[in-house]
C-alpha cells in the first residue's frame, strides 16, 4: 500500500480565485487520480494524472478549470481555477499501481468557496 499526503487539508477561498492542491505519495506509483466528493455523496473522478503527459479528464471536467500536473511518479497537483461556490467540496487524491486496480487515498482537501 502507499501512504498519501495532501496539502492543504482545508481552505476557505474567495470567488474568482484559484487554489492548488498538492498530493505526495511515499513511493513511486503508476497511477494517480483526482476525485471530488460533495457532502453525503460518493466519489466522482475528475481526471487521471499521467506522468509526462497531459491528464485524462472525465466527462464534465476540463483542463482550463482543473489543470493538473504530474512531474514525477510520486507527486501531483490539482488547481481549481476561477472558483465559484459550486466548487466547494472535498478533493481527494488517490494512487495505485497497474495490475490490480487497487487505489489508496489521501486524507482529502476540504475547500469552501465564499
Amino acid at each position, binding site marked *: 500500500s502507499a501512504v498519501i499526503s495532501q496539502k492543504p487539508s482545508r481552505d476557505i477561498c474567495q470567488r474568482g480565485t484559484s487554489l492548488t492542491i498538492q498530493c505526495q505519495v511515499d513511493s513511486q506509483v503508476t497511477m494517480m487520480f483526482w476525485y471530488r466528493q460533495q457532502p453525503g455523496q460518493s466519489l466522482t473522478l475528475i481526471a487521471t494524472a499521467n506522468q509526462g503527459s497531459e491528464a485524462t479528464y472525465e466527462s464534465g471536467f476540463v483542463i482550463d478549470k482543473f489543470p493538473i500536473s504530474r512531474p514525477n511518479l510520486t507527486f501531483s497537483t490539482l488547481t481549481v481555477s476561477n472558483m465559484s461556490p459550486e466548487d466547494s467540496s472535498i478533493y481527494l487524491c*488517490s494512487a495505485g499501481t497497474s495490475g490490480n*486496480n487497487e487505489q489508496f487515498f489521501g486524507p482529502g482537501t476540504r475547500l469552501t468557496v465564499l
Partner: protein
Amino acid sequence: EDQVTQSPEALRLQEGESSSLNCSYTVSGLRGLFWYRQDPGKGPEFLFTLYSAGEEKEKERLKATLTKKESFLHITAPKPEDSATYLCAVPSMDSNYQLIWGAGTKLIIKP
C-alpha cells in the same frame, strides 16, 4: 452500462448487533471488487479486494464475501468505532484504471 448499487443507504445497529451490507454490481468480466471505509472528513481507507466468486476476506469484525452478482460486508458484534460510511467499487470495463463507485452505506453503531 457498468453500475454499482449499495444497500441500505443507512443502517443503525446497537453495539453487538451483527448485520450485513450489500453491494450489487452489473459489469461484465469482473476484475476485482473493492471495499473501503470512510470516516467523516477523511479519505477512503482501503479494506479488501475480492476477485472471484466464493472468495472471502476478513479483518477484525469485518468479513467480505463475493458472488457473481454481489458482495456482502458482514459485520460481527460491531462496536461504536465501526461507525463509518462503507463504499464498494469495481473497475470499469471502459477503462483500465477507472473505478465505478457505489453511493455507500452509512453505518451507525449505538453504544
